[in-house]
C-alpha cells in the first residue's frame, strides 16, 4: 500500500512499483481508491482495478446475505447510514476487498494507491477500531481478517512517499510513527520522489569566472538559474538529512523528471532506474 500527502507523487510511485514488479516477472494488480483515472494511463498494459467504498459495501452486503438491504436502500443511503452508525465500515469493506484480491492467488503483488496521508492512518486503523466496537457478526470477522493481513509483514507493507521538502518530510515522519505504533503495520522503504539528480553545476566562484566574458544579461541569466538550482538542491539535501536522521528506515530516491506531469514512458524509465528497493520482493 502506497501512502503519502497529496501532491507528493503517490500515484507515480504506485505506477513505478507496479511497473518494476511486472518487469521482474511478477503478476501485478494495481488498485486505486480515489477514482483517479490517471493511474491506468501510467501503466497501460497492467491490470488496474478501481475500488469505491459504496461498491465494496454493496458487494459485501450481497456476499453476506444482506442482499435485501442493499436492494431496498439506495447506495448513498447505505453508506451514509451504515457508515455513520459504525465509522470505518466503509474503510473496512475496501480493505476487506483488497484482502480478498490478495488471497485469491491470481496475483503475486497487489499495489494499492492508498488514501492521502492524513486519511491513511484512519483508513488502516479502521480494522482495529471496529474490532473494538463491534463484538460479533460479519463486520467483526472481516475486521479480524483485515488485521491479520495488516499485521503480517510477509503479506503487507506500507510504502510512504514524500518529497524532499519541509512539510512533506514532517508529515511522513509523523505518519510513519503513527502507522507503526497505532496500526502495527510493516513499513517498507520510504520513497523520496522528485530528487534533483540532474546536471552537475560548477561552484559559484567557477561559474562567475566562466560568465565573466559574456554580456551582462546572459551572465545574469546563467548565474540566477545556477543559484536558483543550487539553493533548491541545498534545501533538498537538508531535508533528506533530516529525514534520514529522524526516520531510521531505508530510503529510495526517485529522480525528478523534466516534466510537469508524468507519462507511461517516464514511469518505465523510473522503474528501470529503481535499484536496491526491497519494497516488492517480500509482500504478496
Amino acid at each position, binding site marked *: 500500500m502506497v501512502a503519502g500527502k497529496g501532491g507528493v507523487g503517490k500515484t507515480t510511485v504506485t505506477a513505478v512499483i507496479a511497473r518494476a514488479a511486472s518487469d521482474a516477472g511478477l503478476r501485478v494488480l494495481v488498485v486505486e481508491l480515489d477514482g483517479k483515472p490517471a493511474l491506468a494511463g501510467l501503466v497501460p498494459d497492467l491490470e488496474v482495478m478501481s475500488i469505491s467504498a459504496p461498491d465494496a459495501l454493496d458487494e459485501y452486503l450481497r456476499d453476506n446475505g444482506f442482499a435485501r438491504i442493499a436492494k431496498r436502500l439506495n447506495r448513498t443511503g447505505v453508506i451514509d447510514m451504515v457508515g455513520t452508525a459504525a465509522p470505518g465500515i466503509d474503510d473496512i469493506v475496501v480493505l476487506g476487498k483488497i484482502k480478498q484480491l490478495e488471497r485469491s492467488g491470481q496475483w503475486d503483488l497487489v499495489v494499492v494507491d492508498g488514501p492521502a496521508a492524513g486519511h491513511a492512518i484512519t483508513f488502516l486503523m479502521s480494522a482495529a477500531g471496529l474490532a473494538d466496537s463491534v463484538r460479533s457478526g460479519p463486520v467483526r470477522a472481516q475486521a479480524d481478517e483485515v488485521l491479520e493481513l495488516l499485521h503480517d509483514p510477509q503479506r503487507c507493507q506500507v510504502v510512504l512517499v514524500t518529497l524532499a521538502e519541509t512539510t512533506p518530510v514532517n508529515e511522513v515522519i509523523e505518519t510513519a510513527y503513527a502507522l507503526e505504533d497505532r496500526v502495527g503495520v510493516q513499513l517498507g522503504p520510504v520513497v523520496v520522489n522528485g530528487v534533483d539528480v540532474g546536471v552537475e*553545476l560548477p561552484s559559484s566562484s567557477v561559474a562567475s569566472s566562466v560568465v565573466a566574458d559574456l554580456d551582462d544579461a546572459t551572465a545574469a541569466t546563467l548565474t540566477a538559474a545556477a543559484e536558483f538550482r543550487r539553493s533548491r538542491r541545498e534545501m533538498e539535501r537538508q531535508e533528506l538529512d533530516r529525514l534520514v536522521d529522524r526516520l531510521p528506515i531505508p530510503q529510495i530516491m526517485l529522480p525528478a523528471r523534466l516534466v510537469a506531469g508524468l507519462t507511461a514512458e517516464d514511469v518505465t524509465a523510473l522503474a528501470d532506474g529503481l535499484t536496491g528497493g526491497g519494497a516488492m520482493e517480500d509482500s504478496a
Partner: protein
Amino acid sequence: MTARPADDLIDESSVIVCCGSGGVGKTTTAAVLGLEAARRGRRAVVVTIDPARRLADALGLVDGLASEPQRIDLEAPGELWAMMLDTAATFDGLVRRYAESPEQVDRILENGFYRNIAGALSGTQEYMAAETLHALHGDERFDLVVVDTPPSRNALDFLEAPGVLSRFLDHRLFRLLMLPAKGGLRVIGTATQPILRAIGRVVGSDVLADSVAFFQAFAGMETGFRERADDVIALIRAPETSFVVVASARHDTIAEAVWFVEQLVDQDVEVTAAIVNRAHPAFGDGSAADASERARLAVDPDLRALWRNVADLRTLRERELDEIAPLGAVAGDERVVVLPLLDRDVHDLDGLRTIAAHLFDHPTVER
C-alpha cells in the same frame, strides 16, 4: 501576468473561499490573501482546516492555531486573525443553538451516533467550514473572512455541504425510525422492522440502539438546522463571496482545478481568480531549445553545464505553462495568476510576504 484578479479579490469581497486539491498550497494562499488584506487596512480572519504546524509558525503563533480566532502580531494598517476549524465543536454549537432544552443538548451530545456524525459523516467537515464562515461573517471584529476548504474531489461538496444533514434527516431510514408505532407513540419497534434487524446484524445492536436514540433526541431540531443551512448557502452564493481556485503547476492538480472551475461555472458561481503556485521562474528571455543549443555549442564544460541548467529550468517552465493553458481557457486568461516556486521554503511572515509581492505585483518585498 496582470495582478488585477487578486486586487479585486481583496478589495471587493467580504468572503473568500479557496478551493483546490490537497498539497497545492491552498492554506498558504489563504494566509497570503489575509496578510495582503491587512496590509490594505482590512480586518481579515483566515480559517484553515489544515492543522499544519508550519502555518502557525509562519504566522508567529507559538502555541499553534486555536479554534478561536487569534490576532497575528503584525505592523499593518489593518488586522490579521487566524483560526483552525474545529468540526466537532462547531457542530456542538449548532446543537446548543437549536435544542429546545438543556436536556435535549445533553442527550444528543452524549450519544455515540451523534459523535460519529459530528466526526465522520461525509460532508460534515465542509458543512462546518461553511457554518464557521457564516458565523465569522456576522462577527463585527472582521470585515473579510478567508476560508480554506477541505481538499475534495468535488468543488460542489462545499456548496452543497450545508444541505447534507437535512438530506440525511430526510432519509427514508430516518422516517422509518420515527414511524409512529401503535398507540401514537414515537417508539420504534426494532423487532417489527426487518430492515432494522438486518442492519443491526451488520453493525451490531448497540450501534443501532444508539442511532435510534439519536434520531429520537434530534426530533424537533430539523427545522432550525434546515433554516440555518439555507442562510449559509445564501451567503456562499452571495456576490460578496469570491471563489479562488488554487492549483500547483502540475498536470494532475491543473486538471482538477479545471474540473473545479467548470463545476462552479455550471452552478453560476463566478471564479474570481485561479492561482497556480510553484511554477518554475523564467530565466532570461529565450526558449529551452535556445539554451540547449548554447549548451551544445559551448566548449568550456562549466559553461556547458550552466547552459544545460538554464535549458532544464526553461523546459520545466515551458511544460508547466502548457499544462496551465487549459485553466486559462476555462477561467479566463486574465484571471490566472502564476506564482513562482521560490528558492526556499515558506516558513515565516517574510516568506508569505514574498508570495504576496508576486501575487499583487508589489515592486519590492516589504518588511
